[in-house]
């Protein structure tokens, strides 16, 4: 007897050799997602990612609110990196409405974005540590993350969800002692960061588990359209901050970190090395920043976009984030599409896990720098 199944559902035949495992949807470290994994003994035969448990329809919500009202909810997909996910939206709206940003605001935005990148990478690293059973590597980044959260709190008034970047600049100026405090804390952090090397990255257990597992070749990294640390770990030198510099990144002194191995170890190491570059950017930006001046261009109340569209992108902690904004002479955008790094890297998961040992799954999965809430939007 054949039964009529609702669309999207299918019957599964059970094989006595292959076992199906549901990894998730309860996620120990972030928003929920599920991997449907088929295993033959200890080896993964296939992997079918099933995201969507934290799909909140950010893009749909954006069609109902005007350009300013959209700011606070668009940062929700990745609250630890809220400045970076708002950045392309602000750039896009500025291009759409023809807004000029004051010079000082551009530097403050870059500082906020880099501080936020460190907050995100430290949180990611903490969970990476606990995924691999290294509880010191959970405690240290989680503690050091407070340094940057305190700085961002001094800038914006909020600890995690700042809504600090707005079209036209930033919401408010820096507090008076910010520069001195920021330099002091960044200097401490750089010293501290070197200790991570000994306890985590030179750890023989970590190396044994991650080196040579989940190898993504350069050709495949390009073909699969990956982005961010996954792409750079496979030897492709691509960083939006260098390739398409926005705001003042072209004036600042930093390098992109590229590794050739393409394995889980390289993918776990690239974000760590990028934090050194972030510290360099912060120090350089504080030095080159105009010491006074306006930080926000005043907008008209309820500004309308023309009959136009823009696509703007920035480099976030997880790779490029692109905003495609279509406007039709209304105060609300007609369509907002957010193309995020996590969603683009998701395609690697079935590819890399196939043939891998089940025990290597956490290292490969979290090494992809995947943030479920951001991928679902």
């Amino acid at each position, binding site marked *: 007897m054949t039964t009529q199944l609702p669309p999207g559902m299918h019957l599964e035949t059970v094989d006595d050799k292959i076992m199906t495992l549901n990894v998730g949807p309860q996620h120990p470290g972030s928003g929920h997602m599920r991997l449907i994994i088929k295993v033959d003994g200890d080896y993964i035969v296939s992997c079918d990612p099933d995201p969507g448990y934290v799909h909140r329809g950010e893009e749909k919500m954006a069609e109902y609110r005007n350009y300013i009202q959209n700011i606070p909810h668009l940062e929700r997909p990745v609250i630890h990196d809220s400045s970076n996910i708002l950045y392309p939206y602000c750039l896009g709206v500025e291009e759409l409405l023809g807004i000029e940003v004051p010079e000082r605001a551009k530097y403050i935005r870059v500082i906020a974005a880099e501080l936020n990148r460190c907050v995100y990478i430290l949180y990611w690293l903490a969970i990476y540590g606990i995924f691999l059973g290294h509880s010191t590597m959970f405690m240290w980044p989680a503690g050091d993350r407070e340094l940057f959260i305190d700085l961002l709190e001094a800038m914006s008034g909020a600890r995690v969800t700042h809504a600090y970047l707005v079209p036209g600049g930033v919401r408010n100026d820096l507090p008076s002692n910010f520069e001195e405090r920021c330099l002091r804390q960044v200097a401490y952090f750089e010293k501290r960061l070197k200790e991570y090397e000994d306890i985590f990255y030179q750890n023989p257990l970590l190396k044994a588990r991650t080196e040579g597992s989940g190898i993504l070749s350069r050709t495949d990294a390009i073909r699969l359209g990956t982005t961010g640390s996954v792409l750079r770990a496979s030897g492709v030198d691509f960083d939006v901050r260098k390739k*398409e510099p926005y705001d003042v990144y072209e004036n600042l002194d930093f390098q992109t970190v590229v590794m050739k191995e393409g394995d889980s170890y390289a993918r776990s190491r690239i974000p760590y090395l990028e934090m050194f570059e972030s510290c360099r950017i912060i120090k350089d930006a504080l030095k080159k920043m105009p010491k006074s001046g306006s930080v926000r261009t005043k907008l008209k109340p309820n500004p309308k976009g023309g009959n*136009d569209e823009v696509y703007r992108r920035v480099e976030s902690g997880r790779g490029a984030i692109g905003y495609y904004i279509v406007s039709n002479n209304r105060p609300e955008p007609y369509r907002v599409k957010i193309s995020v790094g996590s969603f683009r890297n998701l395609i690697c998961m079935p590819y890399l896990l196939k043939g891998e040992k089940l025990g290597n799954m956490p290292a490969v999965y979290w090494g992809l720098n995947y943030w479920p809430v951001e991928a679902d939007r």
Partner: protein
Amino acid sequence: MSSGTEKDEVKDTTEEHSANSDDTSRPDSMSKDEAIKFYETKGLDLSPDVPTKPKPIPEFEKSMADKISSKFGDAIHIDYIRSDRIRVTTKRENIVDVAKFIRDELRYDHAESVSGVDYPDSREIEVVYHLGSYTDEKLGRQIFALATRVPREDIPNPGSDTTRMPSLRDVFYSVEFHERECFEMFGVYFEGHPDMRRLLLPEDWADIPPFRKDFKIKGR
């Protein structure tokens, strides 16, 4: 008697208030020019929000657009050429050929995003592919937007109606999950895609594709 005077006072203030509000609200009988003058005296600026100044067409992007238009002629339409951005619209029958040309001759190698845009008034859904390049140094800044339009049905039946187009998955492997998302959110079926299932929505979703304009958020 005292209560009577109080009432009078209350009445007076309301009259005053209504007179004030009459002064600030726009009378209905005004023409457009009168209305603009009226608002200008109130200190409100009614000039268009977006300054419309023409920008020069950048040369490198122009040469790329010329290459593709000399190959396909009337089959494509160049919507705009701006610095770092080119947008081309084509018919859905030609999209695979155009995409292959973009990959092989213009050397774009991956898709950054695939967006659907719903236009219920013209009964069409637009699908926009944003393509980028990792291999070509010169194209690092560039984004190539390739768009096409598919017919839209008022009562959608995703997968079995005319809202369909050929998949670009064989040309750009990276569109696989993006096209799945477009399928569930807009009901555009991509022919030739190996795995056209839902991705983010629940398996038992029984409503219309939620990013279409006629799907309203409750209470809005």
